[in-house]
C-alpha cells in the first residue's frame, strides 16, 4: 500500500526551480563545456586534443539543442505541436546573416539598419517574436488546435521558404546569405572566434534552459500542462487559454530565433533550405527521441540525434533518413517517453528500492 502511494505521488522535489535534474543538467552542460575548452587548448600533438572543427561542430549542436528546447516548451508542456519552428530559427539566422553581410559591404535600403549590432540583436528576437505573435494570435484566437495547427505551421514555413527563394526579397534568393567575414570587428575565421561562439552558444543553452525551467515550475507551467491535458476545463475555470498559448509560443519562437542567430556564424551560411518543412519535422523527432515534457530530454535528444547524423551521414549517407525514420518509429513504439523516460523510470525504481530497503530495515 505504501509503495503504491509513493509511486503515484508526484515528485514534489522536481517542482522546485533548483531541482536535482536542473542542477545535474546545468552541471553537465558547464563541465562539458569546460572539458571541451581544456581539451581544445592542449597541443595538437596530444591524443586528447579536440580540433577547432570539432569545437565548431559542438557549437552547432548547442544551437540545435536550443531549438529543441524551444519546441519542447510548447509541445511537451503545452501540447502545441509546431511543425514549423525552423521558420523562427531561420528568421533569427537571416537577421544575423544580414548583420554579417553588412560588415563587408553596405546593405541597400532598409537593410542598412542591420549594420548595427544592437539593432541586429533586437531583430533576432523581434522578427521571430512578431511573426509568432501575429500567427499565434490568429490561430489560438480561432481555437485552431492539434493536427490542424501543425499543418498550418508547415504551411507557414513552406510559404516563407518560397518567399525567401525569390531574389526580390533581397535575401540572396536561393543561395541565401553567405560571405561572412567579421563579427563585432573580429574575424570569423580566427580560432578565438570559434571558441567564443561555442561558449556563447553553450551559455545561451544554459540560460534558455533556466528560463524554460522557471516557466515550467511556475503556476503558469501548471496551467500549461493542464491546458495540454484538458483545454476546455482550463477555460471553464477562467484562464484565457489563448493568451497562455500565445505567450509561450512567442517565448519559444524567440529562443528559436536566438538559436538561428548563433547557428549562422558557425556554419557560415543561411539559405531558404532552413525553412524546409523537413528540417522542422526533424526537430520534432529530436524532442520525441529525447523525451518530451522533460527539458533535459529535449537537450539530450538534439545532441544524440545530431551526433548520430554526423557520424552516419559520413559512413552511409543514403541510409541516414531511413535510420532516422526507423529510430522515430522504434522510440514511439517502445519508449513513448523517449530517452528521458528510460532515465526517470530507472531513477524511480532505484528510489523506490531504497525506500523499500529502509522500510524493511525499520520493520
Amino acid at each position: 500500500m505504501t509503495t503504491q502511494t509513493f509511486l503515484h505521488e508526484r515528485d514534489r522535489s522536481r517542482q522546485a526551480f533548483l531541482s536535482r535534474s536542473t542542477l545535474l543538467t546545468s552541471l553537465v552542460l558547464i563541465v562539458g563545456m569546460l572539458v571541451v575548452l581544456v581539451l581544445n587548448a592542449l597541443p595538437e600533438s596530444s591524443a586528447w586534443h579536440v580540433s577547432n572543427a570539432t569545437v565548431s561542430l559542438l557549437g552547432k549542436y548547442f544551437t540545435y539543442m536550443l531549438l529543441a528546447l524551444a519546441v519542447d516548451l510548447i509541445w511537451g508542456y503545452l501540447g502545441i505541436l509546431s511543425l514549423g519552428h525552423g521558420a523562427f530559427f531561420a528568421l533569427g539566422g537571416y537577421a544575423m546573416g544580414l548583420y554579417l553581410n553588412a560588415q563587408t559591404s553596405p546593405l541597400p535600403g532598409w537593410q542598412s539598419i542591420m549594420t548595427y549590432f544592437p539593432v541586429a540583436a533586437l531583430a533576432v528576437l523581434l522578427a521571430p517574436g512578431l511573426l509568432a505573435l501575429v500567427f499565434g494570435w490568429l490561430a489560438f484566437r480561432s481555437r485552431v488546435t492539434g493536427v490542424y495547427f501543425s499543418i498550418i505551421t508547415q504551411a507557414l514555413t513552406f510559404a516563407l521558404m518560397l518567399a525567401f527563394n525569390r531574389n526580390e526579397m533581397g535575401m540572396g534568393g536561393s543561395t541565401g546569405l553567405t560571405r561572412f567575414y567579421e563579427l563585432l570587428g573580429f574575424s570569423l575565421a580566427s580560432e578565438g572566434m570559434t571558441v567564443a561562439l561555442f561558449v556563447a552558444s553553450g551559455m545561451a543553452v544554459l540560460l534558455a534552459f533556466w528560463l524554460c525551467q522557471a516557466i515550467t515550475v511556475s503556476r503558469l507551467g501548471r496551467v500549461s500542462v493542464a491546458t495540454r491535458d484538458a483545454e476546455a476545463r482550463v477555460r471553464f475555470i477562467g484562464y484565457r487559454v489563448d493568451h497562455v498559448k500565445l505567450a509561450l509560443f512567442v517565448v519559444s519562437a524567440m529562443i528559436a530565433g536566438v538559436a538561428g542567430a548563433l547557428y549562422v556564424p558557425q556554419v557560415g551560411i543561411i539559405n531558404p533550405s532552413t525553412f524546409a518543412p523537413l528540417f522542422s519535422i526533424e526537430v520534432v523527432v529530436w524532442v520525441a527521441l529525447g523525451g518530451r515534457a522533460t527539458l533535459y530530454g529535449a537537450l539530450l535528444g538534439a545532441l544524440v540525434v545530431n551526433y548520430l547524423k554526423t557520424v552516419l551521414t559520413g559512413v552511409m549517407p543514403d541510409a541516414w533518413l531511413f535510420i532516422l525514420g526507423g529510430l522515430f518509429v522504434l522510440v514511439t513504439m517502445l519508449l513513448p517517453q523517449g530517452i528521458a523516460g528510460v532515465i526517470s523510470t530507472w531513477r524511480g525504481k532505484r528510489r523506490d528500492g531504497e525506500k523499500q530497503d529502509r522500510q524493511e530495515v525499520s520493520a
Partner: protein
Amino acid sequence: MSVIDSTRFDRLREFARPDRVFDFMAPAQSPVDVRHGPILYLEDVSVSFDGFQAINRLNLTIDDGELRCIIGPNGAGKTTMMDIITGKTRPDHGQVWFGSRHNLLTLDEPQIANLGIGRKFQKPTVFEALDVTENLELAMAGERRVWKTLLARLDHEGQARIDEVLETIGLSGERYRLAGVLSHGQKQWLEIGMLLMQRPRLLLVDEPVAGMTEPEMHRTAALLTRLAGQQSVVVVEHDMGFVRSIARQVTVLHQGSVLAEGTMDDVSSDPRVVEVYLGGDEEAA
C-alpha cells in the same frame, strides 16, 4: 419653482458625489446583482444543430441560493443548456442573464467562469498529470493573467483554503496523489472541489453520480446539499433516486423545453412526465 430647483440641486449633488461609481466605470466583474430576484434567467432560448432543435423556446429561472435538479430523457437538451450558460454554445435566439447585470451572451467562457459560474462536466475532467493540491490551486479564485500567473505563489491563505476544500470533499488523505490515479468517485469530488475553489455563485453540475457506487452517491448527495444555500446549485441528473434524495425543486426538460416544474412529488405525479419517462421505457421494453 424653488422646490423643483432644490430637487435638481439634490440630483446634481447625488450625481457629483465623490464616492460615486458610474456604471460604465464599474469593473466588468462587479458582483452579481441579485436584488431583483433570480441569479440565472433564461428567456425564450432556442438553438438548433443542423436542423435538430436541441433547445426550443426554453424559459428557466434559478433563484439565489437554490438547489435545482434538472431531469429529462436523453436528448432533452440538458447538456446543451449548460453549454449555453457557460458560453460554449451561442443560442440562435433568446436571452441569458446572470443576476440582473450580466448578459452572458456577450461573454466568453473565461469571462463567465470569472464572474462566478462553475461547471462540472459529465465525464470527470481533472488535470491528471498534476496532483490533487495542484488541481485545486489552479482552480483557486484569483489572478488569471499570464504574467501574474507566472509569478504567482501559493500563500498561507490559499493553502488554508485548499485544506478547507480538501476537508469538504473528503480528499485530505490524497492531497499529494496524482489526480490521474484517483478512483472515479474521487475524481468527481475533486472536480466539485475545483469548482468550490473558484468561489462560484452558481454551480452547474452535470451528472455527478454517474458511475458511482451507492455509498459514494450518498456522500455526493450530502456534499451538494451542504453547498446549496452558500451557492446556487443546478444539478443535471438521470438517476431518479438520487434526485429524490436531494431535490427541493425539480425541472423536467423534454425536447428542449420545460415540460414541468415543481417539487419531486408534484412532478412525478404529472401525467405528461409519466408519459415521457414511462412511455419511453415501454417503447424501449
